[in-house]
Structures are given as structure tokens and as C-alpha cells.
């Protein structure tokens, strides 16, 4: 018998992973034709979202099925957390970089190295407040970047969507780091799914 909440986690993860992979594979042909870097970074963001959500589901499954209080109580919990945090960070980095690559050019490897360093620092000190603060600071920084683009852009709706995506990303991280901390979890899940479905719809509409 499956523990309570299992179906919710399964549906949530499945929908987000499906949307992310639809975006990744749906944009394959236009990237192959154009080799446009912005499209590449955008695709990678959603590929890494899919991977992150997969590991998030794995962590949730372990927590629910074995009734661990925290993922670190599980033998391989640290590895699962490391993978989840790394991929969720790198997904956000690629999404933001897809918006700013024309003005600020740097090597993709720097994104990976930065994500890895933040992940490792967050996990070395297994204190919820510390890694929450690191992710919160990162969140504020990224919202600032999105906002500066928002002010100059005509695509106001797009930046609203991206800001909501950042908010739900940080809430997802909190949910994993501190289980059962968030009230109204189902509403957060529904809102996250809605955001991803809106982005998927906009992508598929444009690529034809």
C-alpha cells in the first residue's frame, strides 16, 4: 500500500517532467536548423528541470515510503540531495543565461562550477537555515536580473512567468530541505504545474 501523498508527488513530478521534456524535444528541430545559442540554453534549462524533478520525486518517495524525517536520515540521501540541488540550480542558471547571454558572455562551464560549489557548500553544513539562506540570496539575485530585463522588455508577461517560476523553484527547494514545512502544498504544486503548462503551451504554439 502506497503512503499518503505518494500519488500527489507522482502526478506533480510526472507533469513537470513531461512538460520539460516536451519543451526540450519540441525545440530540437529549430535549434538544429539555427544553432542559435539562446535556444540551446533555453532547452538545456528545461532538460535539467526534468532531471531535477526526477530526483526530487526520488527523494520524496524515499521520505514517504520509508517515513524518514529528513532525507539525510537515508543512507544515500546526501547523494540524492546533491544531484537534485545541482540540477535545479543549473536549470535556473541556464534559464537566466538564455536571457542575458548576448550582453554577458561567459563559459557554460562556469555555470556548472558555480552550481556545484553552491550545492556542496549547502550540503556540507547540514543545517536547514544555512542552505535556505544561500538559496534565498540566490533567488533574490536572480529575481533582480529578471526584473532588470523586465523593465527594458516589451514582453512583460514573460518576465512575470519567469518570476513565478523562480518563486516556485525556491518553494520546491524548501519543500525538499524542510519536509512538511510549507502550508498549502497542494496549491503550490498546482501553481507550479500551471506555470510549466503555460510555458509549454507558448513554446509549442511558437514552434508550430
Amino acid at each position, binding site marked *: 500500500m502506497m503512503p499518503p501523498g505518494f500519488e500527489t508527488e507522482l502526478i506533480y513530478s510526472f507533469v513537470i517532467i513531461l512538460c520539460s521534456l516536451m519543451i526540450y524535444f519540441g525545440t530540437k528541430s529549430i535549434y538544429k536548423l539555427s544553432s542559435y545559442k539562446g535556444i540551446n540554453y*533555453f532547452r538545456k534549462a528545461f532538460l535539467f528541470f526534468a532531471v531535477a524533478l526526477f530526483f526530487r520525486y526520488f527523494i520524496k518517495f524515499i521520505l514517504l515510503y520509508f517515513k524518514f524525517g529528513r532525507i539525510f536520515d537515508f543512507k544515500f540521501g546526501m547523494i540524492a540531495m546533491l544531484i537534485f540541488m545541482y540540477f535545479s540550480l543549473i536549470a535556473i542558471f541556464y534559464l537566466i543565461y538564455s536571457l542575458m547571454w548576448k550582453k554577458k558572455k561567459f563559459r557554460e562551464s562556469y555555470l556548472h562550477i558555480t552550481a556545484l560549489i553552491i550545492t556542496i557548500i549547502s550540503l556540507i553544513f547540514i543545517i536547514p537555515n544555512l542552505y535556505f539562506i544561500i538559496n534565498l540570496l540566490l533567488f533574490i539575485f536572480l529575481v533582480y536580473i529578471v526584473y532588470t530585463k523586465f523593465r527594458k522588455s516589451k514582453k512583460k508577461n514573460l518576465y512575470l512567468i519567469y518570476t513565478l517560476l523562480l518563486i516556485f523553484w525556491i518553494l520546491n527547494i524548501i519543500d525538499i530541505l524542510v519536509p512538511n514545512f510549507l502550508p498549502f502544498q497542494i496549491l503550490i504544486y498546482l501553481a507550479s504545474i500551471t506555470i510549466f503548462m503555460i510555458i509549454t503551451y507558448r513554446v509549442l504554439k511558437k514552434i508550430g
Partner: protein
Amino acid sequence: MKRGKLEIIKDILTIIQYNKSIKITPLLRKSNLSSTRFYDYINELKEKDLVKENNNKIILTEKGFDYLSKYKNIIGFIEEFDL
């Protein structure tokens, strides 16, 4: 108005498509590019298999035709997500 890279590629491919096959020199003239930039573009188009050379003339490949048919989608997508 300055053309972006994708637009330049589209313009070159359109010229080739219109002429069905075209020699390098007339293509260079019609492309409105310096010779250095033109040859950079042509080499890139060959590498990406958007064009090929046949009897000293440049022709579109299937991928080149595909690029032209999907150009609006590509630009629309880039603009939609501000990439």
C-alpha cells in the same frame, strides 16, 4: 538596419532558392556582404549542411529548404522568449 545572423543566413538561402543554383561570385554580389564575411557564412552554411556545392554552383540542401520554411517559427520563438 543591421541584419542579425539568422536573417543574413535566410537572405543567402533565399537568393539560392530563387536562382535554384548559383555560382559563388553572383551570390556574393547579391548577398550584400563583404567578401570575408560572405565566405565565412558560406563555409558555415556548408558545415551545417544547409547548402552544398554542385558543379561549381551552390544549391540548397533539404535542410536549407527546411530552414527557410521554419525561419518565421525560429524568429518567432526567439522573440517570444526574449532569447
